[in-house]
């Protein structure tokens, strides 16, 4: 009986003074707003803007160059094929000389 009452009283003491014993559980902050560094956010935003734009511009430039080269190549081949045989021979000679 004595030991039981001692046990109950020690349990009551534990619940009354949790701060002295440290935290007893971990709790999520839930939806509490986070504190972000404004400078880092601004630098990240501007870096992303330029990366996105530069990637798109580079893709357009590469595509444009590849298309122009292919069109020129085909136009030249069509001119050669459409030209009369003698003229085509001259074109070939000029091309080999150059």
């Amino acid at each position, binding site marked *: 009986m004595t030991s039981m009452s001692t046990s109950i009283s020690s349990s009551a003491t534990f619940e009354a003074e949790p701060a002295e014993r440290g935290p007893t559980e971990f709790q999520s902050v839930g939806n509490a707003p986070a504190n972000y560094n*404004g400078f880092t956010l601004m630098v990240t935003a501007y870096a992303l803007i330029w990366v996105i734009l530069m990637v798109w511009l580079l893709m357009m430039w590469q595509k444009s160059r590849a298309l122009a080269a292919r069109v020129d190549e*085909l136009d030249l081949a*069509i001119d050669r094929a459409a030209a009369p045989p003698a003229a085509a021979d001259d074109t070939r000679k000029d091309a080999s000389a150059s």
Partner: protein
Amino acid sequence: MAKKHTPKAVTGADTAFYALWLVTTGLMLFCIYGAFIYAPEERAMGIVQRIFYFHAPSAYVMYIGAAACFAGSVGYLLRRTDGWDALARAGAEMSVVFGAIVMTTGPLWGAKAWGYLWVWDPRLTTTLLSLLIYIAYIVLRAFAGDGPGERKFAAALGILGAANLPIIHFSVEKWAGQHPKVIMAKGGGGLQHDMKVVFFIALFTFTLFAVALLWARVRIGVLEQRLARAEQDAIDLGLDDRTEA
């Protein structure tokens, strides 16, 4: 019958195109100076508010791209010409690029201003929806072929995408949300004078930038059509092998 190939000459349109890029680049440098040095720091949000000078004009260019896609789509359905189709495609691509900028810079600004990277606010959600519609358009054009049926379907999608624009624009006024009202509109917060100067220069610069980008993308579309014609001529002449060309 194949036409005789003539060497390319620099046309007035080429000169205007490169002049536009030159002016836009100069103004863009001024915008960077304005956003980081000329404009004062905002009292409540601090340095992160400087995202605004590129975030809001990017949203505006996203609208321009969507409007170009809408005009190109309607034009294509009425006339069925390659030019209108190229304009619609260019507009959709521009909407995706600037939509991506808006959807990355906005949450970064919101992280400081609201404490959250993302909230299901009406304006954020409708903008995300619009971005997804134009991504769908680009994916459709890239993978579904380039036949008349696919072009018509894409044109319908381009028109549907534009229907979302007024919803995005008026969402902040019609439904309560985290996103601030349009800053210059009735009920908006207003801007300090120097901030306003930088903002309007940025809007003007981004307008020129949008025109330059659309023009560049349409030129690529025209080149693609020239290539298709040249390939047809090559096939007609029996030059069907790439190495032979």
